[in-house]
Structure formats: structure tokens, C-alpha cells
């Protein structure tokens, strides 16, 4: 299993890699060298070509041109099986664990040669010995479903190490972790690198992680590797300049009127309870109040009841207790009430949850308004009015679609997001509920959507921003509430917020009592 820990971990070099998908040149003459026993950050925006580069190395894609050298020897890697045989491993952004199985079962399953009958006693002993040699440990008998996101990330890494892979690619490993968990996972990876056990490639867009943990860094943009250098020899400003191509406005926070005081309470949620898909209590006594003209952010690690909370507010899930009041009156989430109180929302995975996939962009834009004048006329749809109205929205929100009649699922993620936002940010919005509105977007699209949200707030809209991205929360919000184990466990003004303190509240145990600062 742990093949000769004293041997040097693999080095890897790619030379002049080209890869084209249809009309998009995903990689053009990309060259980079990952040295043995180093932690190397691959920095770039979404769509810069980082994932394509490593997927070519791992054998998921075949490059159109170029060479790959492992330990100085040229290799042709045609399939993931071949990259595995060379000791190259990849830790994915999404987890590839079986949640209804134990840690031990998940580790054992990856082995090439499983015995027909498994002697669990000796396997647990061997796994225990293996864990002792690692920087982090997990209870081998625990069910994966009971692990926190950080522990799952560690298990993914342990799985690769257990299988004897000594060259690891980590694809945005900290996107689901709190700052403390991220520091811990990356710190422990760095320890293994420093012991000469591993070569690590860290795909990221977070400068903080690059400067703190990586020894080497490469910046990618538009399918090219622009620079490879030692981290100590560069600065955040220089890297940002390269990454965004000198467009400094892209990374900046949106302009907001911070001097204006928020208005009256518009939406009040008291002791709200709701069950999750498996019948457990997913939202537990959630209480908060939202004022006009403010953004209340609900921060938290994914899977702590945020999805269920938004579903209850959206009318997609029944509450088992508590009350929701909008504008001082009880709110039963009917279509009529949504229109009366101006409640609009953008949930996570909008293509799945907010759109009808097989309908056109125009039809999806009309979902809120098709039954009202001027689009509706005594029960009839006025297609010409609808078309003009849709075209105006498509132009205003710069939605790239081949035609208003194109199916919504042919659009890119950013354009789907813009389509839903165009529908939900209509003139009569008074309460806007957003869940991870910028997830998976490149920096330019994200900045644009954040600017729209900030503008809505300045117009006096009450905005509830449920987000797992702490940077986004700190950038956009006026107040921050932390959700953990279905409860609101902490609340503070943005001005007094501390990244690490918020992170600690995110991982507090579920039975902790709410407190205020």
C-alpha cells in the first residue's frame, strides 16, 4: 500500500499542450513544470484552462498536441487508469465518497485487488497503522454521512494516499470548507509535502491560500500559462494583475451606499422548523428579521439547513413549526401573496430549481408575469407583447442566447443565472431571496451580478443572501447571520465581522444556543 515512503514523489512537466472544444481554444501552448516534493498552486479564473490542463494530465481528455513528462520520461496518458498506474491522483471538487458507507469501506473500495471475503478486524488494524503515519486521522468506523465537509475532504485525500498515489491534484479543495478547516487541510498537506512524501498541485483562485501554503505558483488566463515562479518571489498584486489581465475593476467590491440606514422590518421569520429529505430536523428554530434596504447574509457550510430554509421561504417545502411574516402579516407563500408582497428568489442550481429546462428563454422569463397584463389579455397570451418584453430584458441583462426562443438549457451557467435574475429583479421586487447567486461564475459575471444585487439594496429592497462563499458574504452584506446545524447560531454587523470567528461559529455543534454580538 504505502510503497517505499523514502522514494521521491513524482515530478511532472507538460510542454506546449493544445486542446480545443468546438470553437473554444481551452488550452493553447500551455507549458508548466511541477517539481517533485513541492506544493504548486495553479491560479486562474473559472474558464482559464486550469481544469482542462489537469484533466489532460489525468487522462480524462486527450490533448490535441503537446507532451507530458512524468519523472522526465515522456508518457502518453490515454485514460484515467494509466495516470493512476503512474501514481497520479486527483481529488475532485465534488465528493466521490459513498455517504451511506463507513470510512473504512470507502478506503477499501478503491483498492485494485479486494479480497473476496473481507476480514474487517485485520483491515481496521491495518487502516489504523496507515492513519498513524498521516498528518490527519479519521475514525475508520464512522459513516461518511456523519462527517463534516472538512473531514470528507480529508478522506478524499487519505483515499488517494492509501492507494499509493504520490502526485496529487487538489481541485479547489477549500471551496466547501470554513477558513479554519481550509488552513488545517492545506497545512497538513504541506506537512506531508515537507516530509518528502508528496507532490501537490493546488487548483485555486484564492490568493490567501497561494501565498500561505504554496511554494511555487503558476498563473493561467485564456488557456495559457502566463507565469511560473516561486511564491516568495512574487506578490498578490502582481498575481492579480496577471490573473485578471489588468482589469482591476473585476475583483473589486461593488459600490454600495453604506451611509444609508436601513428601513423598517419587512420580513420576519420566527422559530421556523422544517424537516430535511431524510426526515431529520433540518431547520431548527431559525429566527431572523430583515429590513428594507439591507442585505442580511446567512453564512454557513453547505448542508446546514440553508437549502431547506430557502425551500420553505420559496414554498417548496412545508414548515413544521414557526411563522413567516412579510410586511407585518402572515405569509403563506401563495402565488398571489408573492405578487402582492413582491417576493422574488434565485435558488441554488437555477437551471434545476428556477427554470423549466425544456422551455425557451422567453418562456422562462415570463414565468412570473404570463398571467398578468400586459402579457395576458383575458386569459390569452399576447405573444408579440411577450416577445418585445423578453427582448428588452435580454438586452438589458446582456443574456447571450441565440434567440429568445432558444431552450434555456442550451445557455451557459452565467447566462442562466442572468436570465433568472432578470426575471426576479423586476421593478416591483421588495423582498429578494438569493442562494449562492454567483456559484460557478467567472469573476466578471459574478461582479456584474453582485452589482445588480447591491443596486437592488440601494433601491430599498430587502435582500436575504444565503451563501457558502465567505468572501461574498463579507463583501455584500450589511449584517451576517451564521447557520449551523439548522440554527442561527450567531449574528453580527458586517463592520464587526471577523472571518475566523465566523468560521468557528459555522462548525459549532448543533445543540449550541443562539447568541448575539
Amino acid at each position: 500500500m504505502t510503497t517505499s515512503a523514502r522514494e521521491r514523489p513524482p515530478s511532472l512537466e507538460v510542454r506546449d499542450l493544445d486542446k480545443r472544444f468546438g470553437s473554444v481554444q481551452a488550452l493553447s501552448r500551455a507549458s508548466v513544470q511541477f517539481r517533485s516534493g513541492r506544493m504548486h498552486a495553479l491560479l486562474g479564473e473559472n474558464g482559464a484552462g486550469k481544469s482542462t490542463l489537469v484533466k489532460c494530465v489525468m487522462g480524462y481528455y486527450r490533448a490535441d498536441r503537446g507532451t507530458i513528462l512524468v519523472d522526465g520520461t515522456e508518457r502518453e496518458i490515454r485514460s484515467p487508469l494509466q495516470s493512476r498506474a503512474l501514481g497520479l491522483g486527483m481529488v475532485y471538487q465534488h465528493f466521490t465518497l459513498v455517504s451511506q458507507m463507513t470510512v473504512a469501506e470507502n478506503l477499501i473500495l478503491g483498492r485494485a485487488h479486494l479480497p473476496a471475503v473481507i476480514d474487517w478486524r485485520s483491515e481496521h488494524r491495518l487502516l489504523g497503522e496507515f492513519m498513524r503515519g498521516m498528518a490527519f486521522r479519521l475514525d475508520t468506523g464512522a459513516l461518511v454521512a456523519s462527517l463534516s465537509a472538512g473531514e470528507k475532504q480529508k478522506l478524499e485525500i487519505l483515499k488517494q494516499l492509501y492507494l499509493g498515489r504520490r502526485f496529487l491534484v487538489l481541485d479547489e479543495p477549500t471551496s466547501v470548507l470554513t477558513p479554519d478547516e481550509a488552513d488545517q487541510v492545506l497545512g497538513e498537506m504541506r506537512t506531508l509535502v515537507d516530509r518528502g512524501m508528496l507532490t501537490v498541485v493546488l487548483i485555486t483562485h484564492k490568493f490567501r491560500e497561494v501565498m500561505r501554503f504554496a511554494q511555487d505558483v503558476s498563473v493561467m488566463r485564456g488557456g495559457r500559462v502566463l507565469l511560473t515562479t516561486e511564491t516568495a518571489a512574487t506578490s498578490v498584486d502582481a498575481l492579480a494583475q496577471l490573473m485578471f489581465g489588468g482589469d482591476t475593476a473585476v475583483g473589486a467590491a461593488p459600490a454600495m451606499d453604506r451611509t444609508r440606514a436601513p428601513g423598517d422590518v419587512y420580513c420576519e421569520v420566527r422559530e421556523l422548523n422544517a424537516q430535511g429529505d431524510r426526515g431529520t430536523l433540518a431547520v431548527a428554530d431559525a429566527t431572523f428579521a430583515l429590513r428594507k434596504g439591507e442585505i442580511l447574509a446567512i453564512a454557513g457550510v453547505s448542508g446546514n439547513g440553508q437549502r431547506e430554509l430557502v425551500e420553505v421561504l420559496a414554498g417548496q417545502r412545508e414548515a413544521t413549526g414557526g411563522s413567516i411574516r412579510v410586511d407585518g402579516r402572515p405569509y403563506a407563500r401563495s402565488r398571489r401573496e408573492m405578487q402582492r408582497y413582491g417576493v422574488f428568489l434565485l435558488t441554488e442550481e437555477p437551471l434545476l430549481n428556477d427554470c423549466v429546462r425544456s422551455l425557451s428563454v422567453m418562456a422562462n422569463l415570463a414565468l412570473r408575469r404570463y398571467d398578468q397584463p400586459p402579457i395576458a389579455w383575458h386569459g390569452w397570451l399576447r405573444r408579440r407583447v411577450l416577445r418585445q418584453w423578453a427582448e428588452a430584458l435580454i438586452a438589458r441583462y446582456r443574456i447571450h442566447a441565440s434567440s429568445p426562443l432558444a431552450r434555456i438549457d442550451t445557455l451557459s451557467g452565467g447566462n442562466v443565472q442572468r436570465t433568472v435574475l432578470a426575471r426576479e429583479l423586476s421593478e416591483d421586487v421588495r423582498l429578494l431571496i438569493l442562494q449562492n447567486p454567483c456559484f460557478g461564475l467567472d469573476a466578471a459575471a459574478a461582479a456584474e451580478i453582485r452589482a445588480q444585487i447591491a443596486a437592488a439594496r440601494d433601491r430599498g429592497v430587502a435582500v436575504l443572501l444565503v451563501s457558502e462563499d465567505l468572501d461574498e458574504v463579507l463583501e455584500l452584506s450589511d449584517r451576517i447571520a451564521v447557520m449551523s446545524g439548522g440554527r442561527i447560531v450567531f449574528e453580527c454587523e458586517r463592520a464587526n465581522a471577523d472571518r475566523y470567528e465566523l468560521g468557528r461559529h459555522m462548525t459549532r455543534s448543533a445543540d449550541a444556543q443562539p447568541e448575539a454580538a
Partner: protein
Amino acid sequence: MTGAAGIGWYGVALAIVGGALRVSTPYLFVSLGEVLTEKSGRVNLGLEGTLLMGAMTGFAGATLTGSPWLGVLAAGAAGAAFGLLHAAICNLPRVNDIAVGIALFLFGIGLAFYLGKPFIAPRAAMLPALPLGAWSDEPAVRAALEISPLFLIGAALAVALQWGIANTRLGLLLRMAGESADAARALGRSVNAIRTLATTAGGFLAGVGGAFLSLYYPGNWNEGLSSGQGLMAIALVIFARWSPLRCLWASLLFGGASALGPALQTVGVTSGYYLYSAAPYLLTLVLLVYSSSTRHALSGAPSELSISR
């Protein structure tokens, strides 16, 4: 209550126990087969058709060879062929396992009627019974404890499957395919191959269950033989929460319910006979309503099943 009536009611209880041991076997085999299939992430609703095909093939095999055990094997082979067919069709892209199951359910019934016509009259070599009640002088006890070896094989199989799912390579691969196809693919395992194997094995077991119907109890071949037992066994899997051992207990419960009508008849309660015969169907309804919820998914259901998503 008088003494005579007391013995009578004791007789009813004994008859229900005996009925449970006798009638439960097809439920047990079909539900174990369905557990295997569903653990791999697919539902095979065609097992009612497979059960009837097994009954017909088993009866024909026993008639033609003179050996009931060769009949059981033939029934298993026919069931396996049906399982393989279900799996092969479901391996094609964008095919729904539920729809394929319903098609095979009807196809199996039709094919069994068509091929089984010549065997309706003769009587085949029956499976032997083990007289586990021979120690007793009471004929009621003897009758109740006359047990088919197939039941014992099924009970042993339930224990073996329960153990094997947790402790063998095949068991782990089966669960992985049913819980996360993505994880299986990321490890380079073929999800389709695992599901094909599981569905074929599940079909084999359902076929053997059918052989019990035609070769032991009721022990003949006719077209109304299975009377929905294959479908109820699938419902029973949900009630048993995908656990082979719980399938054993649930099968006994259903068998006992089926024996309620005949048992009451023995003490002279004849009114409402057909109502009592409906007991297993009623039990299915009650249990499914009881174990379902509008608020959350079923616990223990393999995540890849179409009912879980």
C-alpha cells in the same frame, strides 16, 4: 371462553404458524431477489412475471425429467434469463427501469401462459417435505411443522446475504453501485456490469420462488398461481428497508396473513372467507401507508434508486 373453543383457537394459531412457514417461501425468494437488484440501484418490477415463468418452467422441468430439483434449477435459469433481459435493456442509455419492469411483468405472464398450456393437466414430481413435527402426536402440530427444504434454503440465504453484503467484495461493490454510481465510476468500476449481475441473480431467486409454487405449495400449475405475490414481495422489500434478514421476518408475517382465511375455516368461521383472503393485500396497503411520509424520503433506500431521487 369454553375449553373446546380454547383448543380451537390454539388450532387457529397453529394453522397460522404452519401457513406462515409454508406460504412465506415465494415471498422470501422474490424479496431477496429484489433486495439484490435494488441494492445495486435498479428496481425490477417484472418479478411477478418472473415468478410465474419460474413456476411454469419448474413444473415443466420436473414433469419432463422426473426430478423436482432439476425443475427448481430450470426455474432458476428461466428467472435468471428474465433478469438478464431486464438488465440488458436497462443498460441502454435513457431507459427507465420501472417501465422495462412493467413490460417484462406482462411479457413473463403471457409467455408462461403460452408455453405452459400443455402442462396444465399432468401432475409433476413434487418436492419432498421435511417432517419436523414428527415428535408430536397431534396431527395439527405435524401438519404445521411439515416444512419445505426450499424454505430452509431461503432462510439460510437471507442470513448469508445479510452477512455477505457487509463482508464480501461483491457485497461492497453492490452497495457502492446502488449508493453512488459516480463514486463507482471514479474508481473505474463498471456500474452496468454490477447491476447486470445483481439483476440476473435476483431473477434467479424469483424463478426458484416460482418453482416452490408449482412443485410444493399449492403444488400444481395453473394460470392464477402467483396471484400478485411477486408484486407484494416488491412492496415487502420497502417495508423490510432493504435488509435481507428483515425480508425473512416480513415474509413470515405476510405468509401468516395469507393463512388467516384457511385457518379460521378450520374452526368453522366461514363467513367473510374472501375478506380474510384479502388480508395480505390489506397488510401491504397498511404497511406502505404506515412506512411512507410526505415529508421525507425512505430511510435505508439505496440513493441511486429512482424512487429516492
